[in-house]
């Protein structure tokens, strides 16, 4: 399809699921047991479109590269699809000529027009298509389709069956729009829209108080992140005068460079750094922390497991929670200008990865193990993004893709177990299920191997790249030697590694030519090799812990004597084919995708053509495609160690013993109680606000309204006094009237003479 015009087709990817959602809402009751068809067909069609667009674009972009060589090959690809004008508030106050207001206040109005606060707000509903968007769309729609198929079995017989599929389709629509949006406003819009879908899906079984509470918590914690995104959007608008990613041309004016447009990205100094840039990036990071459940805003994700398991798989594992990674990757040019904020991304990510993995080791609820695992793996991606190198960004997206497959697989597997166990998901209450549900067990094992990073499963390769990129930042010299030959970047400075953000710091020649030194902030000191070494070791430890908790779950669930809880009754069985088929497909993807994408390097080369990642600053950090034997061995050893410890503790045993708790003592209590983070945040944020609210209400009632009532009583009291004057004696009134008239005349006299 060389002549494929994405302009027309791209719109279908979000539009079809939207139509599916609307049809399901309208006809849900009518369709009854068949209510899954609109969602299924529309998401399926969207997946076909998204994949063919991806393939078409990949051919176009990668073929172009193979035919042209040298710097010209580093070109970015983007297409903009404008849909409609959302709002347009044009320039400053300027009264229309000829009106009296214009005549009278001309100079004032002219001064107002001159001021810098005359920013036009022109916002369009514009979609974009570029490699990053293409990859995200394919992942969203493919996982969405598999989850929809699986849900036919899982949600069978639920009274809210149509509602579930309507929400899933609405989510796929929102998420597609989020990654296809081409301005920050639209990103914010769908950032919240996916949050709303998540809210409604977590609270799907709204009669359960825990589900209702978890839904509210998820929305509110996300709102805190949205606060960051909102303020960041405002600051971006102030700073850049537009919210568009792409360059636009206003009517009869010069082109307006978009924030992430090619005009701006060609020149690193056109990206605002310093205090303002860092503030913007930290606010974006806050937003990403909310949506991607990073410390300290991760608390909503484990609770979100109250929702139906397929929703957890789709939204809270594979797609929505990766929106934060998408956002930071998309805003990569903004981040690389602010080394401090960039390093903060890694610090948050690696810390979250470690903390969540530690908590994961002590959870007994299978879905919660996976939830903490998701938080931890997202932390990995953050750690990778924060390195600011091309490899860092592509590795994060690589891990995002592989994680989407294997984590969706694990969640759907857990759902299959839950389905069979009559809703019980506490791993201490069942065991040895591999005999009852062989397909689930086998596919779950594949997913676990991928998650644990065992070669050659998917997670191994993406994790290896993340470790490599962190390692390169911590030990730049070691990598500088074997990474310098490939790329032809001029100003990388003598001896410094290609991983260094060479072009952010101007060279002596550039300073002489008038390029100013970038403004720095205190946070930038964080970007030191020492920091990166710590982060690398944290990530390596996390790799071991990941393998441990994953296989602890595998062993507890699928090995040992077969035990089934009472709730399952006599019908503990393998799930129907409609549920196991998606498991098998995802298992195949988890097994081969990593190896294939790594060996061919297709994904990384493709992503490098995204405008945000093709900027000179980031492109300059391109490293040769290499397999790092040393790191692979370290990572594999960590994983092997984790699996061995898990096997030692749990393989073939009854799974209800408190082995780990005994072994770890007080630390175990700390982990099992999730570091008491929920309680700490409740005590530090929620409680004080509630107290403040109580005080405000009391103040409102007694102080403000009390004062009003007091004032209200004054006329009554006065009336009681004045009443005495109402004696009914006519002459008194006459005298009073005369006095009043005199007073008026006196006042007039005084006014006229004085």
């Amino acid at each position: 399809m060389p002549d494929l015009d994405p302009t027309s087709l791209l719109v279908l990817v979000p539009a079809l699921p939207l139509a599916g959602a609307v049809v399901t809402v309208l006809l849900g009751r009518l369709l009854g047991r068949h209510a899954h068809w609109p969602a299924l067909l529309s998401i399926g069609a969207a997946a076909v479109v998204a994949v063919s667009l991806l393939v078409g674009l990949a051919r176009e972009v990668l073929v172009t590269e193979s035919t042209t060589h040298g710097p010209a090959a580093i070109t970015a690809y983007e297409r903009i699809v404008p849909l409609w004008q959302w709002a347009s508030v044009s320039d400053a106050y300027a009264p229309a000529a000829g009106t009296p207001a214009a005549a009278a206040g001309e100079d004032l109005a002219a001064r107002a027009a001159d001021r810098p606060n005359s920013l036009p707000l022109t916002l369009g509903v514009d979609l974009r298509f570029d490699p990053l968007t293409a990859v995200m769309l394919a992942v969203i729609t493919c996982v969405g389709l598999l989850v929809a198929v699986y849900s036919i079995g899982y949600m069978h017989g639920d009274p809210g069956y149509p509602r579930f599929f309507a929400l899933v389709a609405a989510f796929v629509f929102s998420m597609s729009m989020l990654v296809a949006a081409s301005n920050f406003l639209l990103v914010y819009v769908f950032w919240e829209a996916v949050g709303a879908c998540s809210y409604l899906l977590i609270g799907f079984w709204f009669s359960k108080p825990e589900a209702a509470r978890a839904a509210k918590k998820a929305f509110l914690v996300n709102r805190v992140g949205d606060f960051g995104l909102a303020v960041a959007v405002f600051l971006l608008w102030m700073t850049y005068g537009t919210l568009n990613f792409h360059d636009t041309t206003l009517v009869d004016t010069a082109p307006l460079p978009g924030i992430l447009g090619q005009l701006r990205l060609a020149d690193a100094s056109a990206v605002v750094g310093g205090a303002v840039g860092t503030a913007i990036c930290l606010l974006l990071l806050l937003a990403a922390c909310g949506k991607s459940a990073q410390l300290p805003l991760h608390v909503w994700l484990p609770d979100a497991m109250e929702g139906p398991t397929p929703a957890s798989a789709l939204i809270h594992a594979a797609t929505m929670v990766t929106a934060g990674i998408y956002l930071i990757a998309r805003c990569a040019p903004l981040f690389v200008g602010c080394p401090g904020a960039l390093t903060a991304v890694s610090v948050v990510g690696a810390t979250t990865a470690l903390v969540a993995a530690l908590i994961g080791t002590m959870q007994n609820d299978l879905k919660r193990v996976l939830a903490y695992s998701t938080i931890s793996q997202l932390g990995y991606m953050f750690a990778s993004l924060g390195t600011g190198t091309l490899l860092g960004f592509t590795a994060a997206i690589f891990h995002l893709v592989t994680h989407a497959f294997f984590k969706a697989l694990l969640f759907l597997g857990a759902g299959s177990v839950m389905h069979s166990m009559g809703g019980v998901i506490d791993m201490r209450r069942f065991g040895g299920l591999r005999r009852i549900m062989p397909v689930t067990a086998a596919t779950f094992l594949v997913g676990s191997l991928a998650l644990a990073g065992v070669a050659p499963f998917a997670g191994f390769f993406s994790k290896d790249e993340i470790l490599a990129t962190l390692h390169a930042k911590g030990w730049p010299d070691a990598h500088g030697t074997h990474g310098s030959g490939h790329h032809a970047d001029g100003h990388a400075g003598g001896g410094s590694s290609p991983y260094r953000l060479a072009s952010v710091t101007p060279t002596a020649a550039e300073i002489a030519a008038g390029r100013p030194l970038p403004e720095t902030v205190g946070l930038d000191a964080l970007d030191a090799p020492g920091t990166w070494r710590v982060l690398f070791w944290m990530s390596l430890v996390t790799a071991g812990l990941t393998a441990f908790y994953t296989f602890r779950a595998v062993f507890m669930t699928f090995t040992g004597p077969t035990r089934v809880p009472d709730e399952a009754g006599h019908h503990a069985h393998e799930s129907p084919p409609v549920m196991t088929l998606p498991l098998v497909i995802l298992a195949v993807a988890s097994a081969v995708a990593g190896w294939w994408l790594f060996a061919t390097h297709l994904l990384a080369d493709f992503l490098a053509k995204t405008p945000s990642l093709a900027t000179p600053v980031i492109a300059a950090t391109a490293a040769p495609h290499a397999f790092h034997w040393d790191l692979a061995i370290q990572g594999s050893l960590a994983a092997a160690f984790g699996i061995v410890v898990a096997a030692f503790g749990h393989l073939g045993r009854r799974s209800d013993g408190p082995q780990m708790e005994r072994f770890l003592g007080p630390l175990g209590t700390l982990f099992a109680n999730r570091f008491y983070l929920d309680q700490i945040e409740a005590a530090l944020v929620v409680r004080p606000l509630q107290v403040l609210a109580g005080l405000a209400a009391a103040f409102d009632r007694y102080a403000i309204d009390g004062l009003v009532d007091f004032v209200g009583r004054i006329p009554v009291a006065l009336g009681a006094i004045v009443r005495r004057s109402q004696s009914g004696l006519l002459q008194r009134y006459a005298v009073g009237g005369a006095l009043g008239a005199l007073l008026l005349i006196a006042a007039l006299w005084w006014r006229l003479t004085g």
Partner: protein
Amino acid sequence: MTDFLSPTGFSAASHLVLVIAAPLVGAVVAWLLRARGLPAVRQSAAVTAIVTLALAAWLVLRFLAAPPPPGAAFAAIDAPWLTGGVFDVRLSLGLDGLSLWMFGLSALLSVTAVFVSWQAITDRPVGFYVLLLVLEAAMLGVFAARDVILFYVFFEFTLVPLFFLIGIWGHEERRKAAAKFFVYTLAGSLLTFLGLLVIVLWNASQSGVVTFDIQGLTDSLAAHPLPMSAAGGWLQMVVFLALLAGFAVKVPIVPVHTWLPLAHVEAPTGGSVDLAGVLLKIGIYGFLRFSLPMLPEATAVAAPWLFGLGALGIVYGALVALVQTDLKRLVAYSSVSHMGYVVMGLFALTPVAVEGANLQLVNHGLASAGLFALVGMIYERFHTRSIPNLGGVAAKAPWLAAMFVLFTFSSIGLPGLNGFVGEFMILAGSFQRAWSGVAPAWQTFYLAMSLCGVAGVVLGAWYMLWAVERVLFGPSREPPRGAAQSHAVGHGGHASHGVHGGHVGPGDLAHAGHGHEAPVERCDLAWHEWAALAPLAVFVLWIGLVPATFLAPVSPAVRAAATDSAAAFAARMDALQPPAQVARIP
């Protein structure tokens, strides 16, 4: 192309008069039908409200087809009224960009007000519907008036029907609420009246022409502004404060808001709908119509304080809402909080913020009217508004719950719905003001207040979603219409039952009563409740998805209203210190 909108022989002016007269005619008809009892009365009221809405919608379309230039009015009609000697009060009506949407909203919400009262009002329905229709005429008149005295007459006239609506058809403390509402707003608006008279007299003394025409005054005052110096007795500031007294109470701006929760809680649902949806907006409309264009220098002085009061009001109202246990009181405090956004946007005095504030008037009108209507529907079903006593409404009335969630999302500014557009524009404009539009001495204050506004977005979600969680979700707490208590116990048993046991949905609960003496009845939206909510929902979506439809036509007028104040503000900030030069990359 749009000729069919304006048939010959039906001038826009007579069309406008017809729209305002229609509810009054309907009121007479309803009164004549009093002997036929409740059904006839409410049907005639519904027909009147719908016909008025249709006529108003048609008029709005005519406006959009041929929008008037700034400073001129559409469908202008002008006749002598109280005219003698130099005194020239005129019956002058017309629409412009400032009034267009509020005029339309008044007609829209009146339909909602009638339909939410359908079942609720059985006691003395004639009086109720007559007053409701008179109130509609008064609301339409306020926004169409182009004469100061006529405006004030309509302005006060909105008080009277609502006073009786609250005082007679309200809840337990209705008398106290009605009295407080009436006295509080009247006291404020008398000062407003004095202020308006001073404007007229000042203008007469300067230009030699006694005019009560609002546009004429605005134009004339641009040449002869009220004195804003010690020599002139700070007359402009004094007049500004006098107008503020009435408008601030009406909005209401914290701290003169305490009449509002009481009035709302006690008012019948129909009254609440009109009160929250339209009457609060008259205060903001007054600022836009009088204070900003006529008193720009005083507005510039007061703007930072009102901006701050608006921002603090957002947080304050949200915090107080957070601890309310009466659902209606919670929604009332959410109104206090949300009107803070409008005040904030108005006095940020940037184009984006002011236009956002103007749109937010409509948005809040839709969302709060919808929420009050829904609270009324919940009260009719369960006879309580106490949040702790409610629960699991979604199981019994799924569509009611869905609408509640929709209007909640609109209220908390979920993108794609209308509330977001206004909030976003107001906050963007506020940040713009804070970033590069104030003297450095004010910058920290403005930034802090803007951040308060954004924090309100988080708090707003908190109390609304808490209410949604407690009222709509969870196990059923209050059985509808005296159904046996045993059902609640029956549902409780589901919670612990794993996946399929856990799939407690509407169907389960509906069936939970089988085998008992009476099944838990579904009590979802009736047709008249749909009629009340559906039109609002349409606009909630429309404004959210294509706000340009609603922003563009009124933009010139809103812009013109704020221009002089913005310029005066800029001059004042320049006088304080040269404008901050913030690095901006084009």
